[in-house]
């Protein structure tokens, strides 16, 4: 397991071990939304948790901030096990972790002024009052780039980008150890998204909080994260430093995911492999993310196969009969795939060996370059 280098043995901002969140499914079934997730966010580190809808990434975030009760596993924040604490015991610790949601118009109280929204955590934790409170709020608004005259406005009078800045100011008001940001820029326009990402990067650098950045946006995560964990169907399939993950993804799912992201550059798109008819060198996965509903009999037991085998262009018999273990490769990367060798040699999902697939399997021209060529 990666234990992040932390100064002088201080515990990391966040340590999640074997996190499980199951929901009762229809009939005799179980929805395995999160199924054995372990990850660490060091102090001052940004870890990106990426995955498609239904992969369980948001449920991880909800469990981390204890808005949801994990079925199993532990969550430690700054070394304190918060998994089973009662609401009362948890309350004073809540200043150590904060959440920023995707849609600020739904997470800000429409009847409160911006100043009151930002002041609320400080008041609740009795960290400031009177003039000290007012000056702290003014300082926070300035830090997130909001003009002082906006303090008396209400959320509906602000633009989407400004509202998200208010959420960030509120989250950082109590100087948390850990910020969980769940799709903080997904509802924003491109140009506004850029300014919020810049702001998060600046604040993180200046304030040094740990950040779990949950998103489906690979471009945003590459910009912000030091390390990235890729989730698929309730499980982390690969974890690596951001630059390594983008230049040399090991897991076939990560490879497919990265190759599917349209790059805003027609020249790069062309270089990925010829005309549109040839699919431009992308690894096209067939079908959608399967449902995380499993027969109830298997609750508590590990799933006996690789969850990605139904869509994996490289799947072999072993993938259907045995779950891959989460292995740490030399250099500290982690991957859960039978086909990745112990020395880190990974298969290339863009060049599957001939096998009987659907007829519309993407035709790869022999010289098609893959995303591995996208060097920084």
């Amino acid at each position: 397991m990666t234990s992040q280098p932390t100064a002088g043995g201080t515990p990391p901002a966040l340590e999640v071990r074997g996190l499980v969140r199951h929901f009762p499914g229809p009939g005799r079934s179980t929805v395995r939304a999160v199924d054995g997730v372990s990850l660490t966010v060091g102090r001052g580190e940004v870890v990106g948790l990426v995955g498609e809808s239904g992969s369980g990434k948001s449920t991880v975030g909800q469990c981390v901030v204890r808005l949801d009760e994990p079925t199993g596993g532990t969550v430690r924040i700054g070394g304190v096990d918060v998994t089973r604490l009662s609401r009362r015991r948890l309350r004073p610790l809540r200043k150590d972790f904060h959440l920023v949601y995707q849609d600020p118009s739904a997470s800000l109280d429409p009847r409160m002024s911006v100043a009151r929204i930002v002041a609320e955590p400080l008041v609740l934790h009795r960290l400031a009052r009177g003039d000290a409170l007012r000056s702290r709020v003014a300082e926070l608004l300035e830090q997130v780039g909001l003009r002082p005259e906006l303090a008396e406005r209400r959320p509906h009078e602000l633009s989407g980008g400004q509202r998200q800045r208010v959420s960030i100011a509120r989250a950082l008001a109590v100087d948390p150890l850990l910020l969980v940001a769940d799709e903080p820029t997904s509802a924003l326009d491109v140009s506004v998204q850029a300014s919020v990402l810049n702001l998060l990067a600046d604040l993180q650098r200046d304030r040094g909080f740990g950040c779990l950045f949950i998103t489906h946006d690979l471009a945003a995560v590459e910009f912000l994260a030091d390390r990235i964990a890729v989730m698929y169907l309730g499980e982390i399939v690969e974890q690596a430093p951001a630059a390594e993950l983008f230049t040399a993804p090991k897991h076939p799912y990560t490879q497919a995911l990265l190759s599917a992201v349209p790059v805003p550059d027609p020249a790069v798109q062309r270089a990925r492999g010829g005309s549109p008819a040839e699919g431009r060198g992308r690894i096209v996965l067939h079908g959608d993310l399967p449902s995380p509903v499993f027969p109830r009999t298997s609750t508590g037991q590990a799933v006996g196969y690789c969850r990605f085998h139904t869509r994996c262009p490289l799947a072999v018999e072993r993938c259907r009969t045995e779950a891959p273990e989460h292995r740490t490769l030399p250099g500290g990367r982690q991957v859960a795939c039978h086909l990745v060798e112990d020395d880190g040699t990974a298969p290339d999902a863009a060049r599957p060996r001939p096998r009987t697939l659907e007829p519309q399997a993407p035709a790869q021209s022999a010289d098609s370059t893959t995303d591995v060529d996208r060097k920084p």
Partner: protein
Amino acid sequence: MNDTAGSTAVLRVRDLSVSFRGEEGGDGDVHAVDGLSFDVAPGEVLAVVGESGCGKSVTSLAVMGLLPPTARVGGSVALRGRELAGADEKELRSVRGREMSMVFQEPMTSLNPVLTVGRQIGEVLRRHQGLGRREARQRSAELLETVGIPDPGRRVDEYPHQLSGGMRQRVMLAVAVACDPAVLIADEPTTALDVTVQAGVLDVLGALRERLGTAIVLITHDLGVVAHTADRVLVMYAGRAVEHAPVEDLFATPRHPYTRGLLDAVPRPGGRAAALAEGRRPRLREIPGLVPGLETQPDRCTFAPRCAHADGLCTSRRPLLQAPAGPVGERPDAPHTAACWHPLDVTGAPAEATEEAAP
């Protein structure tokens, strides 16, 4: 000014404007689209790009004649030379679904939950092509196969809730192309989908264009999707076209400062690693300021308040789309035009306004 596709255009939009009556006691009318012109040729994908509120979706609804009666639509929308602006509902109905069709962002709200997908595809066929029940079902299954749905014989009898998001959007595409329309308008067709699913749906769009020669108007905010799918791009800002160019030219040498800003705002693969390697702090470029309100149609550049290169000319006269001086793009048949008094040159520097540039 905009004869890119010449006489071959199937869809020709000229000087389209749409305005809505403002609220009582509000700031007046809202001019959602202001003087927009474009052509689309068979088998061509024109991407209309812009941020929320720029008027791209209103444009698509205006072209389809789907705006509510409260909207005031001006200008011309011609489909194969036939004028649709101001046409009555009966005429529009005979065109919609048969000659021109549309796909929306969220397939679940466009599909009827209580009808099988076969019935919904068949409805179009029976109405426009007069097919019988059995023939329509047969043809529906074929269409499902065209859009890449495995096991179409079974899927044709399923209901929308039994399908995944990507499959539903494929069904929408099947409905849209059932009558082999000349023009398909796709409004953010992949925005609600995951990237791995999006890739498949974009491939279907590409295949339809290639096989059926459909002209596609792709409305999107995603520059990655544009780079992947489009032949030509129209960039909109605050209801107006600010740049119109072949896709390669637009991405390689954007002439309008707003386009440049949009392109720079998107994180690039490897951008952070490159910045860190050079000891720089990774930054995305921001466009300062906010999108203006649409209550006026000012006789000036609407981007001027946010533009670093704006001067007195920009704030006193409205620039029109025209080809900036300088080298022609890769395709002389498809000119690169920008609505800017000081269009950026290849190096990204703003040009001096020339006298003949004035309209």
